[in-house]
């Protein structure tokens, strides 16, 4: 079936089986392999992309459900020679080892910082009202949908803290 997607600002006409997930559409059909498949069941976060401004697990949604949607993948966040502030922070803080969960972590963190700006509370927020503070605990909770088996969590938190600080 035919689906039109806007990915990283470019139009893509996708012709694929209805069963194709957004993740497989990106990886198999559009050769945007920066988005990773870690579990294919929404349990690891490696496939995180930003759809219409929101971070989601691209493995748990069908490509055909996104006709007309605006999608940002890691390839749209920055390139190896022109890194985003967050990507550079991950590099400096060693917020990754094997690198497989990393694009998902960075997409997730990019959108997460917007959620904080919008004043969304989290499970660990003391109060539901007011502007949430970006403490290490808040970052850890908000990033818990992205598993990292190399276990760079302390460095991931440090990278996000640094990037958020420098952007402010």
């Amino acid at each position: 079936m035919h689906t039109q997607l806007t990915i990283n600002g470019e139009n893509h006409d996708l012709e694929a089986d209805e069963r194709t997930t957004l993740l497989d559409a990106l990886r198999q059909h559009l050769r945007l392999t920066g988005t990773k498949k870690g579990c294919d069941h929404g349990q690891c976060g490696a496939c995180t992309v930003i759809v219409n401004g929101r971070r989601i697990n691209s493995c748990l949604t069908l490509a055909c459900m996104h006709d007309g949607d605006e999608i940002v993948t890691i390839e749209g966040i920055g390139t190896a020679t022109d890194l985003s502030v967050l990507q550079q922070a991950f590099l400096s803080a060693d917020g990754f080892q094997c690198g497989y969960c990393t694009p998902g972590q960075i997409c997730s963190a990019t959108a997460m910082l917007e959620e904080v700006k919008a004043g969304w509370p989290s499970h660990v927020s003391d109060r539901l009202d007011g502007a949430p503070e970006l403490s290490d605990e808040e970052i850890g909770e908000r990033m818990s949908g992205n598993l990292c088996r190399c276990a760079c969590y302390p460095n991931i938190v440090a990278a996000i803290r640094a990037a958020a600080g420098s952007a402010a």
Partner: protein
Amino acid sequence: MTAYLKMDEPDRRNRLDSMAQGVIGQPLDRMEGPLKVSGTARYAHEWPVERLCHAVLVRSTIARGHVVRIDRSPVEAMDGVLAVIDDDRLLRNPAQGTAGKAPVQGPREIFYVGQPLALVVAESFEQARHAATQLRIETMATEAVLDPESESTDRERPEGKQTSQGDLDRAMAEASHSIDAVYHTPGHSSAAMEPHAAIAQWDGDDLTVHASCQMLKYNQEELADALGIDAGRVRIVSPYVGGGFGSKLGIAHDAVAAAIAARAVGRPVALALSRRQVFETTMRRSESRQRIRLAADADGLLTGLGHEALVSQLPGETFSEPVAQATHFLYAAENREIIHEIVRLNRTCAGSVRAPGEAIGMTVLETAMDELAVKAGIDPVALRKRNIPDKDPEDQRPFSSHMLDQALDRGAELFDWQRRRPEPRSTRRGEWLIGLGMSSAARVNSLMQAESRVTLGGEGVRIETDMTDIGTGTYTVLAQIAGEMLGVPMDRITTVLGDTDLPPGPGSGGSWGASSTGSAVYVACEEIRARIARKLGCRAEDLTLKDGHAITGNRSTALGELIGDAPISVRGVVEPGGTSKKVRQSTYGAFFAEVAVNDVTAEVRVRRMLGVFAAGRILNAKTARSQCLGGMTFGIGMALTEELIHDPRDGSIVNRDLAEYHLPVNADVPQLEVELLEERDPWASPIQAKGIGELGISGAAACINNAVFNACGVRVRSYPVTLDKILAEL
């Protein structure tokens, strides 16, 4: 030209320390980092290949028996299906690390639930995945062995893994303080974030496989042997590996099945294991039953030490989790008894998961040591310090180096251990009880044969080896060694890894990758230095190489000029020798943790954790620290959440996904601290470095469990320390 070193004698020259470039040990960013953070590093399943089709494995749903019949035609008739394959060469289970030959093969005889019995190849992944669910495989079940602790099942006691020295029973009877307790650890999964995957393509009789592998030299032999072809016809390419932790040591189902399928359909085939298949068809760490006996005099000096371990494995596999590996030498005690038993079970194959042996053996031993400290009323740090031997207590060999004492002291100081209150339940914050705990770390060290080619040309340096970087920092640390030795800035060094066409190394595993392959790079660089010195007519010792210049006396020559258009290329080879036998080699460290136990729900949260480690020369302080963070976080998982749950009726892994096999998430891990101690181990390698990838987990879980006891007074002897086990006694 080849430069060769057999490590027969200690190397106390510390040559890297007398170089001028100043990059060795520095906390440099990963060279391949920009590719990884931008999603452009290419992993196994991501290579652009024309006419690619997709294969999906079909599993056994019984634990033991055989295949009677496969009803292939309905599936062959399905949309897009190209083939249904049950080739005799399909693996029963992956190869063990460093096997170098095929593991047990054949999909007819069934040994465990989840064993791959066939695969379906189709035009698209969606078609193959659905078709695989429709394949009916008729099986005949026979009786399976499922209970690892059944008294009626035979237990093997392999020779060479048992120690009996003195009279432990008597030591126990005469001890002022003693512990005799049984502990359990569950099975674990490596759960690397990248599932095992391969793309196989044939060009005539030549096979190229892009796969996710840790040890290419061995994997090439294993794959060739499994397929029944010459190893020279097999090329494996694996420049980026999305985590391994032991699960990708040996060739696995994905590569073998993809190669068979690609041959059968005459097209390139991609095969990725689903996450569930990763859990049930790749290596699990065996569960264990461990009995520890400790006998001590009034001052806490150990007079006896017993460690009995029971682990499981499939029939026909030689590997078994070497639980007591570090117990042999960690603490002095005259009377010793170490027993290693194996039971053959119909469960997923057991193999290496990060730090096989120490990960669970040290954890249990260090839990028992804490029990002894409590019983004897001795500070846990002091108890360990008191029992550090001055030579291997079993074979009397000297230690190559021994930093446990320093690690314990440094850790106690940094963690402010002295403020710990020994009495459980003495610190409370609201509902939360706070406790401190510690444990020792130790992991055996080894050097493996390794080769690397180093080429110094006008443009800079190129390092080539089939070694892999599984997140370990190999790209960067090899470049740092070459950069230091040859005085070349990092931005002029290229490291090429992960291709069997390159000089063979021992791969990533057993923590030996960086020290072994790094030594091969070093050996090559020494020879290049000698050649430059010859060109300049000076002694290599009098040569300074820095920032692309060779300096002797007051003369500085640009390396580019010196080399011209005749690059110097040297193959460095290092081989283990006498130093592996003459001394006992290990890395050491100490863990400290502060936990909170909820007095209502018994939930445990780690509040702080510190690891102090000594692993010889640190090649890159940033990547080494990250390795330690990773190990410690594995330790948090082992301590609190990770457990393969087997169904008692068929041995299947019921929690075979990342929702129910609980890896720690970000919120489970506080800001961990890592302290790396300055050390040079001349016996370990010519670069005085030892392995560091596994030390961070070797005993880590115990410090958390010991802190739980200190917090709430409940001693849990069965890992993981889930709330139900605490609640029962809270």
